[in-house]
């Protein structure tokens, strides 16, 4: 399987394992969408702002002495976006409902992060 196919498969698996999830994206750390099942018109913007949130999260963690960042989360009334660094070069963004099973999302996300790191690395 090519890297692209592996990432597409990983997204499908995540969606199957956690039906609550409403969108998954792997993007480069400079904000280019690499694989995604967000609607196309949202994809480019989510990749760019997701990478930006991750970069900003890292700086906040440095300035506030929070240690290494494991997750950046933006929570709204209608949903939340979880963003994870996957090594130096990539980010994984997952959108889920505000009242979903966050524990399960996080559990699956952590496994997915490791897989993305391996695929991109």
């Amino acid at each position: 399987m090519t890297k692209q196919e592996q990432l597409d498969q990983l997204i499908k698996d995540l969606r199957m394992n956690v039906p609550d999830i409403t969108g998954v994206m792997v993007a480069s750390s400079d904000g280019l969408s690499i694989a995604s099942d967000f609607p196309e018109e949202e994809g480019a913007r989510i990749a760019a702002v997701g990478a930006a949130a991750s970069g900003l999260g890292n700086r906040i963690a440095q300035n506030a002495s929070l240690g290494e960042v494991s997750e950046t989360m933006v929570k709204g009334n209608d949903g939340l976006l979880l963003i994870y660094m996957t090594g130096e070069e990539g980010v994984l963004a997952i959108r889920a409902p505000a009242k979903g099973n966050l524990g399960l999302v996080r559990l699956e996300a952590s496994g997915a992060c490791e897989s993305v790191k391996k695929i991109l690395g």
Partner: protein
Amino acid sequence: MNEITTKILDQIPSNVKFSEEDADVLIRNKDKLLEWEDGLIQGFYDSVFNHDTTRAVFTEGERPAREQTLRDWYQRTLNGPFDDSYWEWQTYVGLVHIKRKVNNAMVTGMWGWIATYLSSKALEEFPQDEALKLVKAVHALQANVTALIVESYLKNMFVAIDKAAGLNEALLGRLVATEIDDMLANAKS
């Protein structure tokens, strides 16, 4: 030459860029050009101090020190050499200007004034052939120096944003790309 300076100068078409010939013509005429120094400094700072937004850059009583800065720059320019450290210094000026809130409109506007002043003096005081070579040299110098000051102002803004907020230049470019089509559409309507 440092990376940022090289990258900026590489953007300028080579027939427009400051050349060995331009350097020669300035340096061989430097005695005459140095006679114009007082007028240059006076005219530059009269313009800058007669306008609210540019005057607001300066603190009370700062004018003599800034006149000296421009004098030093003019003398260093005419004495040459146009080596790496000269061009790197112009890149550094962009950074100093960020700190002092000297924006790019101010710099490009005042460079227009410098180029007009030196060109008119050249046309008044030199035979036509040499005067035209001087005019070309002044404009090529303007191209290099404004490119370095203005672009390093912008690039160093990006570096500061990256340092402060973790948004590197490529990512900023991507963020801009997500908005630019809408902005263009709005600007047209």
